[in-house]
């Protein structure tokens, strides 16, 4: 009985090391985005009244995106919610992970497609949903599926949908202004106004291009963070690594019609449904598989106590 008494003063053991580098890079990316946006807003205000109308429109669009886009995307991809009776194994995995993560249970959905993939949606933990395709349910072992679901739940815990939507707010605004101005710009006013409009268009284009690169960079960091979150949550980094190898192999072999059906909201898929090899790393929203596997391998080494 004396056993119960001597546990109080034990220092917490760390199964996993810190990820200071990743956090620093993520904060730097966010800082650069913020700086860019600050300059952009400054130029808009300097340009005068027309800009404020655009800002109002953009805020409305942002709200629509936050509150409606997941439903739209889900409808477009043929996502349907499944009950525990329909998918007992998937629900069982998520139930346990939610206990482990101390997270309210998200809605659990399935897409009936043979392409193996999974994604998380929803602006908050309360409104979140996680989705798996039929292909991934059939392909992965329970431990691998658990790793993938823990990755998706990590997106929910980290509020990645919210962070990415907010982070891309001004990028959408810049792209809107560039398109809007190209449509209606020119042909009225005096030379000075015309010159101002040209400056706003140019700045918008530059902001759009730079923020695009920064956003993709941020998205890749969020993926690394979710991989890490999955490893921390399940204690099995190598199960997720094994799942990623299986999924990416299958996606490269999968027919392109199916790939196109799920095109369009790839940021929150575990592996983006595209041929990745043609894209430069700078513009990819997911890190290359080799880097993700290497990061998971480092976590496994830390867990085994050899690193």
């Amino acid at each position, binding site marked *: 009985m004396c056993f119960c008494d001597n546990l109080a003063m*034990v220092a*917490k053991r760390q199964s996993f090391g810190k990820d200071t580098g990743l*956090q620093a890079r993520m904060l730097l990316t966010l800082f650069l985005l913020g700086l860019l946006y600050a300059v952009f807003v400054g130029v808009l205000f300097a340009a005068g009244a027309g800009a404020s109308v655009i800002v109002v429109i953009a805020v409305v669009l942002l709200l629509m995106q936050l509150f409606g886009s997941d439903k739209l995307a889900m409808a477009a991809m043929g996502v349907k919610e499944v009950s525990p009776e329909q998918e007992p194994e998937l629900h069982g995995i998520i*139930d346990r992970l*939610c206990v482990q993560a101390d997270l309210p249970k998200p809605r659990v959905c399935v897409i009936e497609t043979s392409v193996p993939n999974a994604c998380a949606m929803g602006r908050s933990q309360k409104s979140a949903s996680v989705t798996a395709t039929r292909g991934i349910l059939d392909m992965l072992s*329970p431990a691998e599926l658990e790793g993938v679901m823990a990755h998706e739940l*990590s997106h929910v*815990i980290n509020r990645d949908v919210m962070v990415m939507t907010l982070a891309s707010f001004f990028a959408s605004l810049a792209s809107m202004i560039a398109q809007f101005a190209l449509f209606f710009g020119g042909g009225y006013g005096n030379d000075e106004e015309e010159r101002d409009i040209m400056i706003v268009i140019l700045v918008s284009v530059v902001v759009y291009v730079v923020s695009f690169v920064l956003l993709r960079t941020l998205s890749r960091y969020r993926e690394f963070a979710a991989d890490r979150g999955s490893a921390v949550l399940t204690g099995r980094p190598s199960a997720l690594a094994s799942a990623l190898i299986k999924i990416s192999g299958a996606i490269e072999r999968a027919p392109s019609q199916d790939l196109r059906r799920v095109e369009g909201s790839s940021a929150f898929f575990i592996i983006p449904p595209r041929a990745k090899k043609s894209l430069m790393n700078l513009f990819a929203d997911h890190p290359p598989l080799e880097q993700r596997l290497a990061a998971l391998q480092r976590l496994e080494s830390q867990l085994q106590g050899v690193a």
Partner: protein
Amino acid sequence: MGLRDILTGRHQVKDPAPDRLFAISTAYVGLQSEHQIDPAGSAAIVFQSLATSDFESTLKDMEEVVTATGGDSGTTVSTQEDSYGYRWMILRNPDGTPSVEDLAVGINAVSGSIETAGYGERLLCAVFAFVDAQQRRVYFIYNYKRGYWYPFVPAPGDAQERSTERELQLKAQIGSEMPIEPELERWFPLWGIPI
């Protein structure tokens, strides 16, 4: 979770909440005398098992500790893995003499040695089995992350259905005697409980 954690996408697995496991060893008295729900003589603790040599040796030490603690009462220990890869350590009282206190002490010894070894974040839950007047299984599940209890009553048959009505009745009956999970959506089911 602070703003910085959200911005950097960082989160840690929670350690166990302040321990309220022993609430069961007083609450069961009321269950038995007032509601004819008897202890089934078994309990289990569920945790993630890490595939590392350090964790395996922790488990081995732990089994020895529990066997030693249970020596006087005759509590036996067995382990098994479920289909989700979680480890169940099952404690059983000797036949005919169910003792919730002994089980709670044993479960506490297991969770204690897991926490001492620094793996407290791997603890999922503890389950205590009871039998009601109609000979149906009634489980009380202790969520280590939150430090709350909740009842779980699987409906008869193989289908994965639960008798929510019965669970809510149980909450009303003994809610004042033990810390019951206030959020109903966190009464996570646990199918295929081996006790």
